[in-house]
């Protein structure tokens, strides 16, 4: 599987991060690893974009940060979804689904 990774739009990155954090609070590295493993490497988020997104989402109060201990006992910054963020996730998922459905209505042969 040496398919080249797909570039993602900013809004899509945000939704993916929110969806990932909906499982459980994670640190930035965890989020990046989770997305990579879940999509078998098809979707990779450039780490620069990931961290920018995390801090942006924190400012928007969709996620909140707290220092905690990592699996290997190191201090790490953990991000968790806020109520606001959960609401946002639902809304953006719906939008994205509508969008993708619409695109496929055009692409799929009838």
């Amino acid at each position, binding site marked *: 599987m040496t398919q080249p990774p797909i570039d993602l739009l900013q809004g899509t990155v945000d939704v993916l991060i929110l969806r990932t954090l909906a499982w459980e609070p994670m*640190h*930035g*590295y965890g989020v*990046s*690893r989770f997305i990579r493993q879940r999509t078998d490497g098809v979707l990779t988020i*450039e*780490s*620069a*974009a990931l*961290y*920018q997104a*995390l*801090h*942006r989402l*924190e*400012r928007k109060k969709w996620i909140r940060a707290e220092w905690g201990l*990592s699996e290997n006992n*190191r*201090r*790490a*910054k953990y991000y968790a979804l806020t109520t606001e963020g959960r609401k946002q996730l639902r809304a953006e998922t719906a939008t994205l689904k509508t969008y993708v459905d619409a695109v496929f209505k055009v692409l799929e042969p009838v």
Partner: protein
Amino acid sequence: MMRRFLRLPWRSSSRRRADLDEELRFYFDMRTRELIEGGMQEADAHREAVREFGDLEYTKQYCLAEDAMSNRDERRTDFLAELRQDVGHSWRTLRRAPGFTAVAMITLALGIGANTAIFSVLNGLLLRDLPYADADRVARIWGAHAGTKFDRSQLSAADFLDLRARQRSFASLGVFARGGGTYVGTGDPVRLSGMRVDANVFNTLGVRPLLGRTFATGDDSAGLAPTLVVLGHGAWRRVFGADSGIVGKSIELSGRMRTVIGVLPPSFFFPTASDAEFFTPLDLTPILNDANRARKFHNLGAVGRLRPGVSVTEARADLVGIARQLEREHPESNTNMTVNALAVRDAVVGDTRPALLVLFGASTLVLLIACANVAGMLLSRAVSRRQELAVRAALGAGRARLVRQLLTESLVLAAIGGAIGLALAYWGTGALVRSAGEMLPASSQVALDGMVLATAAFVTLACGAIFGLVPAIVASRGNHSALKDGGRGSSGGAGRYRLRSALVVGQLALAAVLLVGAGLLVRSLARLQQNDLGYSLDSVLTFEVVLAGERYATAASQDQFFDALYSRIAALPGVVAVGGSGTLPLRGGSMGSLAIEGRPHAGPKLPEVGYQPVSDDFFKTMGVPLKRGRTFGPPDHNDAAPVVILSEGLAREFWPNGDAVGARIRLGPDPSVPWMTVVGIVGDVRIGVAGDLRPTAYVSTRQDHWGGAAIVVRTTGDPMALLPPVRRELKAIDPTLPLTQASTMKDVQSIELTDRRLPMQLMAAFAVLALVLAAVGVYGVMAYSVAARTREIGVRVALGAQPSNVFGMVVRQGLGAAAAGLTLGLVGAAALGRVLARLLFGVSPTDAATFVGVAAMLVTVVLAACLLPARRAVRIDPLEALRSE
């Protein structure tokens, strides 16, 4: 630990940078290790992790910028959260002490309400915009009598022209004279107040008409003057139904057709004591051509627009200099005649200013007393809350946070008090304007506008800060020992008590000042009401009739009209007597120069005496006693020998030997007028409610025709009940004549007294308020003192002190404060007395009786306020007091 819960974590910019570095370092370490586990060399793995990351520098900047923004947001929500917390806490605290809260709020509401109400009047009168372009450059100009208080009298036509020609201070000068008229439209005839103005008046004032134009050069010429009119906005709406096509139409005013050339804007008012409803051009030529009147007949007012850079003071000096020249050039007419000029703003406010400023001062004193009271109450409360505050401090609340919390409490208190105060002010302002009547110029616009609301808000916040800050600082100084001794520690108590005592002394002093002021005004009014006017006011109806039209051109027709009116009214049931005069004595009168036959006058100028035409039965109707000779009667008709009646004072002044009856005099400047024979002497009459017993010469209305009269009717019953039949009788004689100014003489007096009674009543209300607030303050500090000294008093009683000793101790303490406050207050009142002088009548500003009375009243109130705490002190059980510690 507690601290973390009390305040959310804010991070400094260096803290945020370190956090970000640590977060990213963690990522790189983890990623590098993952790559190594995948089989890479350590150095390659690290390089690869950095490479695949992307733009690191940009990411750092981006994240730091986002973090800075979050931090700002958090600080703001934090502050708001804390404020909400403080306000909520304050509200709960205040609700837990409903008695304290109610008293404090009512106190503040009264203080702020009184202050705001007076300020709104002040604002509507002294600080408003005037309806003149660049109003600060407009001045009012009067004639004045040197060395007397008559500094706002009239100018003569020739003097005015000389002033205008010689002055260098004004860009333009306009002149005007009063002159009313009757408009007969389709309905009842309407009497309108009018003003005759020359072509320069409106340009000088700087007025843009609402419709049409104002007067231009030439409109005041002999040809045009009688044909033009400009309407005021009020008359245009009221009488002409706001007819927008009125310009160019002809209307009949007092039997003459005039073309309306313009209508003035609604905000406009004429800068005289009473406004005018229509304006006609003033042509000075006839009076200038009459040598006897040109310089001796004073009936003109003037306005001027100052040249740029010239002050009113400089302009006045300029005019006074010219008046001196005129005095030298025309000694027979101008001796002692000078000129006065004031900024138009000062002119329109007139005599109301001192009363308003005094009242504003008084209401501010009340507000200060209210603040002192609440401050005292908060200080006492701070004692009982020391434990609560110590607990909060122990839990991590900083001192600044505690001060902020207490200050928020004060501000919440002030805000609620201010809101209630504003409601009081709204109601109070309405009541004030209704009862002020003629005291406020008709043109004043009193309302709770933005300016007033802003001031009230500012005053409220200032109050909250003043009475809140000191107790807050004092209270937050409490230390943790308060926890140990259960909050009853005595440290700091002495200082706090001193502070409270000082507040009470201050309150008593302010209250004393207000009481003295009120006392002086009350005594002034009492003097005025007891003042013997020289006639009787009871059961007298009065109204005015002005004759208009060709029908009354001759003296005989006027006599015929009044004879008919008097006999018809006299025949009405209940009428005792009916008479008429030129002007009601309560409303002032005219002056004229007096020449006596066979006595060449000594000075360059004849003496001035009061002058009044009266009907046959005027003296009988008004109850003015005839002292000698006779009154007027039908034989004194227009063609008979001219006769005159003198007031007792005038007769005594010029005929000290009592031989006035039979002497011959002449009134007025015209030497061609025949001599008049004195036929009687009547009692002295006061001119105006606060006026002097003016020496007056009375002539018969049968020999001096004014074309109108103020009628007086004495009845046996209610004077106003007589008005409808009187109106019917007037209509029967001439349905085109309006009956105006109908009132009882009592009401005329009452209205004339308004501008003295209202300040007195308000001042008295403020003084009573101040006294009650001060009493509450005294009670508060005494009760606190007794409570704080429970143990000490217990020991004293245990050692053998008698109840009378304890009682005396408490009362002495209260009297000490009273003595200090009273001394300060009375000294202050004596110093401030000058301010009141203009409002007083027949009472000295340092009237001993008033000062003694105030002292007695204040001491009594302080004693009463001490009574309850003293009795509580007496009842202290020494065993209980000692055991409770």
